[in-house]
């Protein structure tokens, strides 16, 4: 136990300001999320008659709020809008933690020369690395868990009647994925710091590397999602007068045309192929020209590629595993770097 405390004390003393910055950021964000969730709840409780129709987070399109409800409705939407914006912070926080907590961890040991002391004492540099990372990883995990829980809490306060376990709304901005991405980016930050060995350059480089790696991962996952997605034709109003079929809980993978032969093209792909998709009808049919529209010669249907909300948990787990694997790979590379490099 005293051993763990020694490492914790070392980590704290070495990264006091970074830890303070992250704690303040996460505590502030989490507190704001909880406060907004309470605000939304209390607004709904104060005027259930005015806000009943927007319990799912969207105002009923079929009716405008009564004049007497306009004040509270407006206040509700302002609060909800702020809450939505705040949820972007729980998307960005994991990346920030990788840069702020991960990058300086080994870099400062190399920069300050203390790695010489530690590596001349420790029979295993890997053992040193793991113990050195443990506190920051656990600390980061705790903070990320706070963000994951409070972001879920806030989302649930906005979408009162929707089961968010089957809903891709604010995907990646709440829950487990926030934690997994955070741990992955911390490990990436540590790797960059070990490679560069100077604190400030490592922090700057880590921001770039983490951005590039996760942008690449996002592109890769988009392709993976596309392979698994289903086509959902979109119509604003069916010929029979049915309402829009916009799937609110699904993950929108791409937007484009389902051609008459069943192939799906995003609008940018259609443009690249020279497919003119200039006119659309309320029933979702897409036409190349006004004349075609008048003649009823359509080329396909306005459509989304979607992954239905029921697969939310499956994708969260899949994407979390990807983020954690990236972290594990980065950690393994860090072990190689630390094992081979000179200490100063």
């Amino acid at each position: 136990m005293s051993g763990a405390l020694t490492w914790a004390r070392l980590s704290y003393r070495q990264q006091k300001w970074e830890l303070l910055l992250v704690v303040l950021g996460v505590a502030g964000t989490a507190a704001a999320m909880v406060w907004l969730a309470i605000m939304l709840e209390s607004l709904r409780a104060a005027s259930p008659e005015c806000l009943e129709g927007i319990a799912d987070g969207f105002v009923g399109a079929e009716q405008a709020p009564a004049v007497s409800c306009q004040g509270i409705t407006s206040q509700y939407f302002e609060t909800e809008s702020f809450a939505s914006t705040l949820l972007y912070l729980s998307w960005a926080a994991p990346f920030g933690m990788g840069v702020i907590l991960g990058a300086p961890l080994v870099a400062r040991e190399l920069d300050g020369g203390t790695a010489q002391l530690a590596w001349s004492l420790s029979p295993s540099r890997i053992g040193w690395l793991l113990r050195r990372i443990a506190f920051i990883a656990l600390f980061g995990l705790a903070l990320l868990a706070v963000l994951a829980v409070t972001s879920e809490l806030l989302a649930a306060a906005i979408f009162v009647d929707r089961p968010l376990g089957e809903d891709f709304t604010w995907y990646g901005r709440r829950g487990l994925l926030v934690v997994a991405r955070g741990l992955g980016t911390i490990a990436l930050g540590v790797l960059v710091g070990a490679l560069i060995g100077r604190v400030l350059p490592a922090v700057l480089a880590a921001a770039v590397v983490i951005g590039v790696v996760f942008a690449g991962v996002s592109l890769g996952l988009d392709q993976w999602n596309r392979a698994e997605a289903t086509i959902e034709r979109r119509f604003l109003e069916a010929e029979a007068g049915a309402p829009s079929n916009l799937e609110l809980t699904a993950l929108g993978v791409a937007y484009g045309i389902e051609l008459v032969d069943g192939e799906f093209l995003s609008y940018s792909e259609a443009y690249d192929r020279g497919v003119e998709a200039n006119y659309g009808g309320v029933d979702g049919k897409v036409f190349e020209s006004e004349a075609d529209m008048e003649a009823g010669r359509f080329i396909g249907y306005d459509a989304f590629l979607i992954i239905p909300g029921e697969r939310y948990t499956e994708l969260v787990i899949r994407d979390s595993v990807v983020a954690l694997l990236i972290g594990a790979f980065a950690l393994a590379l860090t072990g190689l770097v630390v094992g081979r490099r000179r200490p100063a």
Partner: protein
Amino acid sequence: MSVDGETVLEARGLAKRYRRGVWALGGIDLELPAGGITALVGPNAAGKSTLIKTWVGFERPTRGSVRVAGIDPWKDRSAALAHLGYVPQSPALYDGLSVADHLDLARQLRPGFDRDYARARLAQLDIPADRGARDLSGGQQAQVALAIALGTRAPILLLDEPLASLDPLARREFLHVLTDAVRGDGATALLSSHIVTDVEQACDRLIVLGVGRVLLNDSVADAMAAHAISATEHPNAVASFGSPDGSRIWLVRGAGDRPATLDEVVLGYLASGRSTAAAA
């Protein structure tokens, strides 16, 4: 502890070139027997730190090999490190940690680290265990680094210019602690310095490193004896050295009729080594 006379540190054809193409060591062969304190001296950039760091496993040889107690540190680092205590050039302690924290950390990192021994050494010097590293003087920081190295109870101590930034009193104190510990434990210490007078009082053996190669590796007594001259040989010289062309180099330092100092012997080696290098 090692048996006296047994080779504890070894370098074979050791050459080290840094990325920018600078050769720090040009293929040296060296054996250091167990026991006592050896001074590793040479001018700046002679390769002293590089040589020590290859033994610690911090620098990989470009050519050749090194061994610590018969173990290649690049093949089995943990086994080699188990024989070594190391004091780096600048004591590089953790700013935010106290002296006691450093000893705790060392105990966590090094199996068998003798914290009580290290603490007792520091207590003798009136260095408070609860004082932060950043509040210690340069001399005290060096003493903490030495106490950590001694606390490993390693049979071989490598000290990389630990005296460079210390004032004369702190140097004297540092060497006193080192000598006391090495004599008491029967350890082997290799102490590098570019100022011979710093280490003269403590060392039994001398390695002179110049131009990336070993110019001398001998006991101090033998080195002194080998170059001693009588007043009849040269009235104002204190030592003589062979030169590349077979003639003798006389080290003339004021009035003769006194024995050469170690500093002067080293100076003679460096001078003749440079002549040899120039001739080569």
